């Protein structure tokens, strides 16, 4: 009897759910990395729950484990995630191995146009093969690697005077990588307010993608390319060009002469820690963290300034960011598609930006008030104009692991030369592409 009553009650709840949406109420699980924007998304999703009657569960994995665990989940055909906000580089594998649902028909049916999203983000987060109109994700979170600095220190008269005396120019956010190095070295070991400070906190992490994301922020502006001709996998002369070698040597010099001791395995969290604890004058990190940093009670507000990754031989920033995809193994694809449909609406996108997420929707980005809506908003637009991303090949993980190893061996573990590191990287990558049948 008890069971029958319970069933009746459940049915009643289900029926009342129907009045809102005529689909069945599902419990959806959305998987993403555990970081500031994820909390904003939880907040945002409450509206979706109210509107559609589905309930949202979230599985947020810390960045160092995120790729490992989620790719493992996809490869094992797991049903943990219905929706996945996966990293941009996963799109090739997600598409070719059938992990992600192709969204073209759905977009067409619901009237969602990719023209409403910034072209760089659609290219990077949604398409496979690159640039083809086959969409496997909706751009969800625009991101790039940028910089922030201690504005209060930069503005101190004695520090400004000391800098001018040494370098003959005013202390200001760097415009080139060379200036960045100068400033980092200038602050390295300097005593400010009675404490020893250091130049900059940069990415050196070995386990996931840290050092690659950090080093490419120097390599790209110096002139590093993946291929001589796009799509031909001809890496000789691109990956190990004299400019690329100079860029890598530069990153090592920055690491050796401008970073706090002990940061041999540092990524997002450590970079934030170093900055928040007042150890460094500058730090690199993803734009995603900037709203949180600006709001930080200790180092935010007037004390913090932001700048886009400085150019050298050209302007370039390392791309971050993710698209949102429907996992092919999910039993609740319809409800998951509801979420994407809801998320794509301009009003939701606007709110997403307000809460601290980086919308890729043109109605948000092209709004005349956007550059002034936050102190880092205009830098974000600047960065997204010149983003470069790592390989997005299905074999991305293998390509990344090779680069992690070669970079860490050279930069942190002091083995060999930059030329050797990049030459070996070409060997590793050639082997992978041969295995893939692409060479």
């Amino acid at each position: 009897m008890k069971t029958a009553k319970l069933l009746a009650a459940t049915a009643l709840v289900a029926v009342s759910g129907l009045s809102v949406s005529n689909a069945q109420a599902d419990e959806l699980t959305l998987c993403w990395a555990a970081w500031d924007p994820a909390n904003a998304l939880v907040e945002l999703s409450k509206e979706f729950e109210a509107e559609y009657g589905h309930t949202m569960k979230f599985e947020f994995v810390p960045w160092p484990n995120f790729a490992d665990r989620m790719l493992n989940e996809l490869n094992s055909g797991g049903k943990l995630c219905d929706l996945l906000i996966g990293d941009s580089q996963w799109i090739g594998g997600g598409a070719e191995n059938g992990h992600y649902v192709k969204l073209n028909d759905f977009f067409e049916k619901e009237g969602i146009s990719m023209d409403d999203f910034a072209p760089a983000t659609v290219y990077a987060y949604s398409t496979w093969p690159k640039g083809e109109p086959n969409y496997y994700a909706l751009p969800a979170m625009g991101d790039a690697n940028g910089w922030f600095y201690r504005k209060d220190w930069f503005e101190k008269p004695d520090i400004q005077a000391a800098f001018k005396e040494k370098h003959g120019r005013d202390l200001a956010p760097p415009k080139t990588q060379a200036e960045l190095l100068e400033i980092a070295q200038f602050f390295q070991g300097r005593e400010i307010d009675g404490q020893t400070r250091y130049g900059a906190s940069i990415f050196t992490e070995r386990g996931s993608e840290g050092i690659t994301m950090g080093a490419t922020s120097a390599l790209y502006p110096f002139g590093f390319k993946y291929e001589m001709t796009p799509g031909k996998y001809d890496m000789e002369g691109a990956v190990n060009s004299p400019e690329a070698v100079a860029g890598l040597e530069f990153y090592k010099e920055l690491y050796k002469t401008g970073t706090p001791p002990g940061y041999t395995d540092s990524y997002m969290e450590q970079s934030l820690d170093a900055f928040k604890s007042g150890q460094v004058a500058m730090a690199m990190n993803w734009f995603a963290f900037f709203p949180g940093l600006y709001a930080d009670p200790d180092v935010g507000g007037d004390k913090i300034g932001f700048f886009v990754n400085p150019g050298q031989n050209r302007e370039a920033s390392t791309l971050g960011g993710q698209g949102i995809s429907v996992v092919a193994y999910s039993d609740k694809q319809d409800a998951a598609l509801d979420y994407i449909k809801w998320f794509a609406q301009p009003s939701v996108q606007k709110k997403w930006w307000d809460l601290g997420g980086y919308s890729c929707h043109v109605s948000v980005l092209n709004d005349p008030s956007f550059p002034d809506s936050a102190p880092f908003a205009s830098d974000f637009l600047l960065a997204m104009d010149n983003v470069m991303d790592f390989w997005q090949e299905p074999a991305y993980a293998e390509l990344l692991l090779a680069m992690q190893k070669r970079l860490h061996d050279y930069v942190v573990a002091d083995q060999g030369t930059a030329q050797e590191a990049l030459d070996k990287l070409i060997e590793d990558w050639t082997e992978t592409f041969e295995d893939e049948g692409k060479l």
Partner: protein
Amino acid sequence: MSSYSITEPSSRQKWVAGTLVIAYAVITLLPLVWILTTGFKSPVDAIAYPPKVLFEPSLEGYVNLFTTRTRVSPEQLQALPPPATWYEEIVRNRDMVIAGPSRYGERFLNSVIIGFGSTFLSVFLGTLAAYAFSRFKVPLKDDLLFFILSTRMMPPIAVAIPIFLMFRTLGLSDTHLGMILLYTAVNISLAVWLLKGFIDEIPREYEEAALIDGYTRFQAFYKVVLPQAATGIASTAIFCLIFSWNEYAFAVLLTSGTAQTAPPFIPTIIGVGGQDWPAVAAGATLFLVPVMVFTILLRKHLLRGITFGAVRK
């Protein structure tokens, strides 16, 4: 030791040996004490220099372990009604509000389910097999026993490759059932070897007497051997439980959410901005203390357990 023996160490020798051993014990236990105390430190005290021995105890680590929190602006904080509970108050003091429970409880529960499930199965199957190996002529007995042992020599990562493919095909990835079966298979070699040793020590005459009394072989096993082997079975069970409890490699490769146990989860506890060491320490404490208690309970059979019954005191 009442009578004088020339092999009995002198009291000075004892004193020196005792001091050295205690010194070693103190040093070796320091890291464990550090885990315990860090769980009760505030985040600031946890990373203080020099490390703090005396500190004001705080439950913040435990609160952070069991909750997820979001930062709010001071204005928003002002607008909220006063905190209803002591743990909300702790969180509010850091300009944050509780957003919901964390995943630690679920992961801990998974550890309990998978640990007990696999322990029950391996001890059950292990007792049967051990009895058979102990009492009957099983063809190729020594080879089978060695085969059972050799399954433990393979690195778990190597075994995980085909297991991963098998689980994927059977839909066992990230399920409790899959992990229980897998841990049972790993534990059963230990269970068989240990239990065989314990059952070997029970005199055969007991059962034979029961058989004469009209018991069937099965009844004799059930009513005579099992009660006699109870201590052995209990300690074997604890060893199996500790293994499943501590296992990491399979868990990290074969589970992602639904069936994930605590060991792969605890290292991923991250607070707002950096690893939240008091919370990690709190999670580790809750996870390690049961094993410490078991170890103390088990001390008589410890050696036997860790050497697969090869060394019996």
